[in-house]
């Protein structure tokens, strides 16, 4: 009996946030998250950077879902028993740099662990022949 009460008590808090709230949920501290998802590169070639992002995603085992040259955006999905979806947006940062912002979702959750993003930017650095610079 005690076990059952404990179990119910444990499950209640999991259930009370309505699932609709997920729509505009921001999860981790927005600033910290954006910072781990963003790097700057010393180039002004947005389109060229998007192409390298596409090649990097392919190297990491993604099949691309879509890309848009005017938005500088690319999305892809990796299936390896799990589903990992990623969107990367490249934009001009001042006159001498580009900003690369990535976000990922693993199964039903946003990826808020810094390590996968570090790994992504390490792979991108190699393909860019440029250093990924931490910003903010």
């Amino acid at each position, binding site marked *: 009996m*005690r*076990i059952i009460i*404990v*179990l119910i008590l*444990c*499950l209640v808090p*999991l259930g009370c946030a309505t699932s609709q709230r997920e729509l505009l949920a921001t999860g981790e501290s927005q600033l910290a998250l954006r910072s781990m998802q963003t790097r700057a590169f010393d180039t002004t070639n947005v*389109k060229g950077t*998007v*192409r390298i992002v*596409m*090649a990097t995603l*392919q*190297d*990491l*085992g*993604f*099949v*691309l*879902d*879509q*890309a*848009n*040259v005017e938005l500088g955006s*690319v999305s*892809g*999905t*990796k*299936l*390896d*028993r*799990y*589903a*990992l979806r990623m969107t990367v947006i490249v934009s001009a940062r001042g006159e001498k740099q580009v900003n690369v912002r990535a976000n*990922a979702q*693993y*199964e*039903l*959750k946003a*990826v808020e*662990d810094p*390590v*996968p*993003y570090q*790994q*992504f930017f*390490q*792979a991108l650095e*190699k393909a860019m022949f440029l250093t990924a610079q931490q910003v903010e």
Partner: protein
Amino acid sequence: MRNAGRSIALTLSLLSLSGCGGIPKDALQLAPEALADREMQTRRFETRDESALLRASAALLQDLGFNLDDSETELGLLVASKNRSAVEAGQVVGSILVAALTGVAMPIDTKQLMRASVVTRPIGEQDEQIAVRVTFQRVVTDSKNNATKREGMRDPAAYQEFFEKLSKAVFLEAQAL
């Protein structure tokens, strides 16, 4: 006391089920086989005409029964997919045998969504060649609509065949990277 310990253990295992199976550590790390995969999935063509290669790739995907989902010619991208049967005779027989023995119907694989993306990219000192990379993946679902397989497709023969056909379509040799 023992009861309390058990309930805590149970609770913890339930909580872990309810959802912290996080992203695998190597999901975004370059795998040791990344280079071999790139070679298998890529060919280069002696041409500067990127859009001709994209057009030929789009036509080839159609020949293979794919529908185009998205494209961005300025970035050299085609995305396509097709839905096909995933029924395999062996699995059906197995399921019937299990049902006959136990009275329980085992779900069998019924459908698969196959996806492809083609990316073209100028390469070489003066962009005198175009590299074409194609990647395939699929999601297989069973008769209960559960995904039973989610995987990148790694059969070298499939990539070989794709590039042989593309090569014929553009009258250019498909060269290894």
